[in-house]
């Protein structure tokens, strides 16, 4: 079986992206003070990326809503996390 990239994997899933409201919001000033940035490895959807200038890039579309980032974030206040508004977000067809 051919290896699939995370983009391909997320492309298989069904999302109802909420264009008006992000359910996860980062405080990038706090993120800038975080030396390890565990989110860049721990997110199973790889939505946290390290940009060349060292800043965190993040896209809430594609979020599988597992909560890993919320748990592993070492900086209080860096991640404001809630589920997407009702009906939005990931929609597992198998689960």
């Amino acid at each position, binding site marked *: *079986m051919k*290896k*699939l990239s*995370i983009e391909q*994997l*997320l492309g*298989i*899933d069904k999302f*109802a992206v909420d264009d008006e409201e992000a359910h996860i919001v980062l405080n990038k000033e706090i993120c800038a003070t975080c030396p*390890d*940035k*565990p989110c*860049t*490895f*721990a997110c*199973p*959807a*790889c939505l946290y990326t390290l940009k060349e200038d060292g800043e965190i890039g993040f896209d809430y579309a594609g979020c*599988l*809503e*597992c*909560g*890993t980032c*919320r*748990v*592993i974030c070492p900086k209080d206040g860096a991640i404001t996390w*809630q*589920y*997407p*508004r*009702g*009906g939005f*977000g*990931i*929609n*597992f*067809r*198998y*689960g």
Partner: protein
Amino acid sequence: MEEEKFGAIIVGAGPAGSTAAYLLAKEGLEVLLIEKGAAPGGKNMFGGRMYSHALNQIIPDFWDQAPVQRAVSKETVTFLAGDQAVSLNCQDLSWVSPPYHSFTLLRAEFDAWLAAKAEEAGAMLACGIRVDDLLIKGGKVAGIIAGEDEMLADVVIAADGVNSIIAQKAGLRKKAPEPHQVGTGAKQVIKLSAEAVSQRFGLSGNNGAAQLFVGDCTKGMQGGGFLYTNKDSISLGLIVGAGQLQKNKYRISDLLEEFKESPHIAPLIDGGEVVEYSAHLVPEAGLSMMPQLYSDGILVTGDAAGFVLNLGYVVRGMDFAIASGAAAAKAVIAARAFNDFSKQKLSIYQQFLKESFVLRDLEAYRGAPHFLEIQRMFKAYPQFAAGLVSKMFTVDGSPPEHLMGKALSHIKKSGIGWAQLAGDGWKGARNL
């Protein structure tokens, strides 16, 4: 006019929530079951298997009507180390006749079915609604807030999963779980024909297989792999301690792709098509991460209460969720007799959980989470087991060595100390 007030509002239409809703509605309560997903199950995933005993108590012979995938007849635990894989395999055909021991499931269809049972019993199911907060009156939970709407209830049952925002809002859990208390699970559902699934796993009829993997698949990190056969698909995934990935600079999505490519897995899924990629947190710390389970006007059930038990060879979540939902319903009914939903009256929930298997089992295996944090379990021991058994089967002209000698020299070579081995063996036998 008096404001409308529900007998119970249940947040989350997963197995815990729907079970509670079903039982309370059957008792004639006005029940509101709120689900944030567009449909029940839409936000839920698990490894792939439910032990039947809990649901069978509530809906006898549920398998006659529920969308189950395969009844599991075969259990396997596999140690992976490089070229070597050593498995412990057990088939018991008594597991696949009533009362079926366990079933593989897909949660989208299964959770929708269970929520529909609650609806049939008279509960009101409201999907696509995110509960934002709790309504507090006089220091007691009095209902929920969702967007602009406020809804009143005698009691709220938090069945909103491992990230339970509701338990936190109620002050029953101080903050999010710690990284070492949860595992990140990632899974792919891989479509194959039903015949291919049966043939590849040596299953007759609609029997199923469940397999757990330890070792290389997590690069020695705390966690493991899992595989469950559905009717015409395979649920394949990994669970890794949430704090471990960053430390070791691995991404779980890459590890899963690598696992699929490994010679131990690739032939099993060859020609299959990935139809879903999902992820979820798994509460893994047992009692040590359990929130306060009840307070004035509120109860916490299922994953929200951390009710999962992982023994390494048995992983249980849904049976705990269902039984805790049932215990919560029982507690609400008991409190209702006094029309008193105070913390004191609802404390009977804890007693019901002890009388059912939920707290009994979690207490009995209280040491398991700690034991499974020993790093050797995930690298040194799988290597040791695979190496030793492989040696047992190898004939290559080298001088004979009896099993005892093989084992002793192998232990020496493995670098595991005698004291460690004895200590781990002792602890394992007592805690698992």
